[in-house]
């Protein structure tokens, strides 16, 4: 074998990433990973995106993954580089996003000695990863990577951390490349197919239901089976609600879609859940932001719970018919069974139930009052929808603006709504938008954010300039931490403890300082033009700072410790 066929550890790493079809690595260099950076420099298959903070790298990889379905890759140096990744890893873990984090480490002989920039990243990240590897031998690198991707992507997806001590990357130690691309892990084999007996029981419940609701979550989006979900919904003529993570799982314009459910969900979705006699839960985990008080949750419903992760089933809400398997496979099994028993699709199915739901719909729970002088945050989201025709990728940060985006922008397709669901990470939206823009440079990518959230990763404006990532940032600027303030209004007699943001920067000038375009909008009459203008500037990042009414609350809202449908319709008005 010629020396050409031998590679050092760092080269094995880049070669492995190329073999695994990785397009981008999001990262930041440092002492322990300089050999990797040198190897990246000497190849052209995998591009490296230099961020300004490692947390942003993880969110960029995350956004890229949510939009494309391809596993995002992060590279960070030992110590602070790795610890900066922790929030992004946790974020990916909570929302089941496949991610591989290449974590540099001090040389093996220094590990455990409190060396410069040493942190036990495998230990730090243990509760928030699907799995992690301590890679200790240069020869192992390709197979550890193949295993990491396999684990990240299959079963319930999630982040995987690989610790790489500097000495195994040494440019002077060269070994042949060998990778087993279809790794076998004897202790790991996710259940794909639903159990036949449970499928039979589920179908029996579905065809005998009088008040059925299909409740679907992020699992439908992550496993790309929206078409199958839509087919099942139409086949049964069932009402379908999505979780925050599941929006786009069925088109937001579909007549059977009854809106998001949960804390700020639509009245019809939460009422339908509360009054259902059968609930078919697909790739959703009964998050507490959905159920409200578990003891009062849908007491009369038979719950069929389909999930790839057995731990999600009966974790918070007891499932009467548990089905472990891939959502797509299980839905197809259900459809086949419906065929087998001769169940006919019928638009009259659930006629009474639909009449009841239409009455709840008529309450129009997403209505709001406009004001001639003040911009309502809901108007901003509606303007973005109008000018993108609902075709843009929308990323959001966390807070009131996130809920307004979820409520007022109907998502027609999956993977177009990118937000931090489980962890609720402020600072997620902007870097996530950058990851999406890298994947789809021609698409409109809009980050809906707030004056609080955007400041948590605002340094990435610099990265956008370097790589020409013309995302549109729309900040619903209410000079406060809006959701905190809302809770303080509702639950703490209006005592605004540290929810007011004093000394905000001038975001227009800030955008300009980073080499971008800034627009300020402070009157309802300017809103439409500004959004249109921002979207028309295809080659420039535009930061639209919209000064919105700071007193606006997100409604409807579940009452604390109530049933799923105990809600405030608007201020002082119960449903």
């Amino acid at each position, binding site marked *: 074998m010629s020396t050409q066929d031998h590679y050092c550890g760092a080269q094995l790493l880049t070669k492995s990433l190329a073999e695994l079809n990785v397009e981008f690595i999001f990262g930041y260099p440092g002492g322990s990973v300089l050999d990797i950076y040198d190897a990246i420099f000497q190849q052209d298959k995998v591009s490296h995106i230099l961020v300004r903070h490692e947390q942003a790298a993880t969110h960029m990889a995350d956004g890229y993954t949510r939009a494309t379905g391809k596993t995002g890759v992060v590279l960070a140096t030992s110590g602070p580089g790795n610890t900066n990744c922790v929030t992004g890893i946790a974020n990916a873990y909570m929302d089941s996003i496949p991610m591989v984090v290449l974590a540099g480490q001090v040389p093996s002989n220094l590990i455990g000695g409190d060396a410069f920039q040493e942190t036990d990243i*495998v*230990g730090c990240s*243990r*509760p928030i990863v*699907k*799995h*992690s590897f*301590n890679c200790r031998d240069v020869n192992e690198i390709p197979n550890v990577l193949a295993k990491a991707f396999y*684990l990240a992507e299959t079963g319930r997806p999630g982040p995987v951390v690989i610790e790489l001590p500097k000495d195994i990357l040494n440019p002077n130690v060269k070994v042949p490349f060998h990778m087993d691309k279809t790794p076998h*892990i*004897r*202790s*790991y084999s996710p259940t794909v197919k639903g159990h036949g007996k449970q499928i039979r029981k589920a179908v029996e419940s579905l065809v005998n239901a009088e008040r059925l609701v299909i409740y679907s979550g992020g699992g439908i989006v992550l496993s790309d089976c929206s078409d199958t979900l839509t087919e099942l919904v139409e086949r049964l003529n069932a009402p379908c609600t999505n979780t925050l993570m599941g929006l786009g799982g069925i088109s937001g314009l579909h007549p059977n879609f009854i809106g998001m459910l949960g804390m700020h969900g639509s009245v019809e979705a939460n009422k339908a859940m509360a009054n259902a006699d059968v609930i078919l839960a697909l790739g959703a985990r009964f998050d507490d932001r959905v159920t409200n008080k578990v003891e009062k949750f849908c007491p009369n419903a038979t719950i069929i719970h389909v999930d790839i*992760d*057995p*731990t999600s089933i*009966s*974790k918070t809400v*007891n499932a009467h018919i548990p089905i472990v398997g891939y959502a797509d496979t299980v839905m197809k099994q259900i459809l086949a069974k419906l065929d087998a028993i001769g169940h006919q699709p019928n638009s009259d199915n659930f006629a009474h139930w639909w009449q009841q739901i239409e009455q709840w719909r008529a309450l129009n729970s997403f209505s709001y009052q406009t004001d001639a002088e003040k911009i309502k945050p809901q108007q901003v989201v509606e303007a973005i929808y109008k000018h993108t025709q609902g075709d843009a990728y929308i990323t959001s940060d966390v807070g009131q603006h996130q809920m307004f985006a979820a409520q007022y922008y109907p998502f027609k397709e999956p993977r177009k709504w990118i937000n931090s669901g489980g962890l609720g990470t402020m600072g997620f939206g902007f870097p996530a938008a950058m990851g999406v823009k890298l994947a789809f440079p021609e698409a409109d990518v809009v980050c809906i954010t707030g004056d609080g959230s955007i400041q948590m990763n605002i340094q990435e404006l610099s990265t956008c300039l370097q790589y020409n990532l013309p995302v549109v940032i729309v900040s619903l600027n209410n000079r406060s931490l809006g959701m905190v303030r809302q809770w303080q209004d509702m639950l703490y007699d209006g005592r605004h403890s540290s929810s007011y943001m004093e000394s905000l920067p001038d975001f227009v000038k800030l955008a300009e300082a980073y080499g971008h375009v800034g627009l300020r909008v402070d009157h309802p009459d300017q809103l439409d033009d500004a959004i249109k203008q921002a979207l028309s500037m295809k080659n420039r990042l535009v930061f639209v700072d919209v000064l919105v009414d700071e007193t606006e609350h997100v409604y409807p809202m579940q009452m604390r410790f109530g049933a799923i449908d105990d809600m405030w319709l608007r201020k002082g008005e119960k449903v």
Partner: protein
Amino acid sequence: MRRILSVLLENEPGALSRIVGLFSQRAFNIDSLNVAPTDDPTLSRITISTFGDDQVLEQITKQVNKLVDVLKVSDLTERQHIERELALIKVLALTSRTRTEVARLSDIFHGNIVDVGKQVYTLAIHGKADKISAFIDALRNETDIVEVVRSGTLGIARGEKALSV
């Protein structure tokens, strides 16, 4: 209710910490824990004794099973099983009367005197947890206990049923 879980997992660095970490992060209780490689050096076996109702135990079992390193999990309390614990007990043995009493108790409980010092005896005993506790109490009535070290519970199913790959 007390439960005994047997876990078969890869004998790899970090595998144990994942299990222990899972218990603490999900607020599950660990009463005792035992871990060692099996006859197959690539496999470790853990015996965990814990407390919880059926629902808690179901979550514990599922969560442990979900760990990538874990091959099998079995709830021994569900079926006929054998459980053992080992204890090493150091007691003061200053007078000949105490020495005789300690030796007599050791005989009754089927323990062994494994070390004899100038002033202390060290005893070894194995059996079910309550037997060991009874032995320690009996010793305490006769003399002063200097030190006790108890292993966690080990368990294995009775009969043909085996936890193996």
